[in-house]
């Protein structure tokens, strides 16, 4: 069997395996969310100030909340299998529209964060490993430890105080200047969004940066003790060549795997960074949906996140086997 055919078979097999996983996720989420006290009608009526019991019963009937749970689940599953994620009664909008609308800001934040964190993580880890036990290594390790241990919301607020309030370099929050209303694809708008993106990205990156730095450092050190390094040294290669060509390439593998897994996790958005910087991503949407008991919306977000994690994991496995020919799929 050719390599391509084998790979295709593998992908199909993995997709088939994913089906029951996703189904189980939907069912478990469904029951988990329904265990919470109160429902969307309670929240809507509570916010409105007061409402008659008749009105609330009417709303429950309209939302389908008066049906027994198993019936509600079946209806939901039926909709999902016809690619309909349902309707958010709170927003009076289809769930899919809401989620897609928030997906772009989330993607922006996620991609820039991963790039920044992985890029700097690799460089810092490399610097630490090549200068093992020198002041450079100590400094980088301390930096990684401190950023990893500092709460994100505190970092975010401190950045706002320093860079927005005191220095005035960046806006405090939001995704664009709301007084301007530039056209979406105009240069002014792109610059504006990029300007707003800096602080949330740096804040969120700091946390992941620490992770990649430590991973990269450990991975470099592990590879440096391998037999092939001794062989290379015996061949008379320079230390630089051994470090940057042989060790570095091998040390990158775990970092790439980790990055792949985290892409999936980051798609769910970061509630903390999004709420501190008022970034209109999926994390905030999910958070608000929970407190509004907007279960259709919440289930939709969970389902999409689950699908993406499954897909990204599959892609990572395939990339992994391309990077390292010793790893076979199948």
């Amino acid at each position, binding site marked *: 069997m050719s390599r391509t055919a084998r790979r295709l078979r593998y992908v199909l097999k993995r997709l088939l395996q994913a089906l029951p996983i996703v189904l189980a996720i939907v069912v478990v989420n469904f029951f988990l969310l329904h265990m*919470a*006290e*109160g*429902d969307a009608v*309670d*929240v*809507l*009526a*509570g*916010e*409105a*100030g*007061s*409402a*008659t*019991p008749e*009105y*609330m019963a009417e*709303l429950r009937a*309209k939302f389908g909340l008066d049906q027994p749970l198993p019936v509600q689940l079946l209806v939901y599953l039926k909709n999902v299998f016809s690619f309909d994620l349902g309707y958010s009664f*709170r*927003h*009076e*909008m289809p769930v899919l529209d*809401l989620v897609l*609308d*928030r997906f772009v*800001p989330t993607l922006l934040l996620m991609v820039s964060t991963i790039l920044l964190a992985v890029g700097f993580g690799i460089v810092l880890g490399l610097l630490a490993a090549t200068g093992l036990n020198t002041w450079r290594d100590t400094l980088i390790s301390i930096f990684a430890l401190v950023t990893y241990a500092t709460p994100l*919301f505190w970092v975010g*607020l401190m950045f*706002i*105080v320093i860079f*927005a*309030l005191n220095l*005035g370099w960046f*806006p*405090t*929050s*939001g*995704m*664009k200047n*709301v*007084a301007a*209303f530039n056209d979406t694809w105009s240069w002014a708008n792109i610059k504006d969004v990029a300007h707003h993106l800096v602080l949330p990205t740096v804040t969120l990156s700091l946390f992941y940066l620490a992770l990649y730095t430590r991973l990269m450092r450990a991975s470099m050190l592990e590879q440096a003790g391998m037999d092939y390094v001794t062989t290379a040294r015996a061949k008379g290669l320079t230390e630089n060549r051994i470090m940057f060509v042989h060790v570095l390439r091998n040390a990158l593998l775990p970092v790439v795997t980790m990055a792949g897994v985290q892409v999936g996790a980051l798609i769910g958005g970061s509630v903390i960074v*999004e*709420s*501190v*910087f*008022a970034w*209109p*991503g999926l994390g*905030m*949407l999910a958070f*608000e949906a929970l*407190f*509004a*008991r907007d279960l259709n919306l919440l289930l939709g977000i969970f389902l999409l996140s689950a699908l993406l994690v499954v897909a990204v994991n599959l892609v990572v496995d395939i990339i992994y086997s391309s990077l390292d020919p010793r790893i076979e799929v199948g």
Partner: protein
Amino acid sequence: MKITKWISGALTAVTMVAAATAARAEGGTLVMLVQPEPPSLASYLSTSGPIGLMAPKIYEGLLDYDKDLQAVPSLAKSYKVSADGKTVTFNLQKGVKWHDGEPFTSADVQFTVMEVLSKIHPRGPNSFREVESIDTPDEHTAIFNLKNPAPYMLRALSGYESPMAPKHLLEGEDYRSAPLGNKPVGTGPFKFVEWKKGQYIRLDKNEDYWKEGLPKLDRIVGRFIPDASTRTAAMENGEVHYGAYGAIPNIDAVRLREMDSIGVTTDGYGMINPMALIEFDTTEPPFDDPKVRKAVSMALDRQFLIDNIWFGYGQPATSALSSNFGATGLHDAEAANYPSGPNVDEAKKLLKEAGAEDISITLDLIPYGEDWRRAGEYMKQALGDIGIKADLRYEDVPTWLKRIYADYDFDMNVNYFYQLPDPVLGVHRHYGTDQIRQGTHFVNSSRYSNPDLDALLVKGAQEPDAEKRAAIYSDVQKILGDDKPVANLFEMNFLTVYDSSLKDHDTSALGAYGSFSEAYFDK
């Protein structure tokens, strides 16, 4: 030659700068904090706070109210109440158009009040309960025919409380899910343009507004910023110009008020009258005994709560009614039967008489922010001093609402109620036997029932004579002071924090829930 050119260039620059400044005084974009993001903009079916911030810029009511809480014309040019109080005639403004160009007429008034507000608005069925029918002899006259006199109704006609909705866009639709809810069309100074979920709502100036020369602003943008500290930073940085109803927490507001560029006011809440209070479960021991309820009320130091948790913003409650009702003579200072300070010995004595020493209860806290948690921690201590062991419970909003108003599964609950511009609108719902409505939020969850009081409440609602009405409410306050099914804590002062170059945002008694048609930047 060169010099003249330079001079003329400089002159042009000066005129341009002058023109720019003039343009800024008239116009500009006001960015206001709206928190949390509203579920819709359908103010005709929800009185939710964030809707109240945005919708009154779009929709208008028949009347507005000035700073002294007196009625002033809005969509109604004038009104006349008949001698028996049972007919109210409104003369409507001429030449008013909906934002889509259709004319506003008396048919819209009739439809909005009879079909929408009286039926699906949370408070409308109460405000308009005496309205039997509305006659529309011509396009600019609406005659309300009442079953009984309803003096309080004339205080519930603002653009926030009773917004006039377009008949041509709602009729035949399901009012609750009509597209109008997310894309409002009103008669007000600002038109709805765009709602970017998770970010902002944008309203632009209504060029065809019926009030000559208004509005002064070009645009109002409502921004959603979930984190309170970030809201404060955005205000400090000048990115937003206005935040009301606690958008900026008191702890930050007391810092910001020292800045020249920022103003802080407690004005603009006179029609809302928020009152912090404790609801008791009066059907079960230990709180079925008025003595125990009184003891709790007596144990608490109201001024301590105000000074230490709300940074001095608030006044201790003196009776069941807010002292703001003094403006209409309904608050009886003589019936001020609430303790001015804590009296531990007296409270202990009451508990002893009631045979309720060393009891354990659960204290539920309204889940609307950290201040209430801190208040709960104080109360736990204060109650401990008189021998009541209180466990605090702080849940999320849906769980809490269900517990208090649907399941009645509580001992005592800290809450706050809007007493609104008239007791009939905001206070009756707490005490009337007809207000024991399981499953309905913010009504008589104490399940207090007293036929004497019920009779007084009915009389109070219908009495057109101001003096007689004051006497009735004086009795109401006496009964409630003795029985205390609800122990009022303090009259809350919400804070509005604003950019000090923003002027005339506070011309209406509605404050942040006003139309902002006269607001402008003076830079």
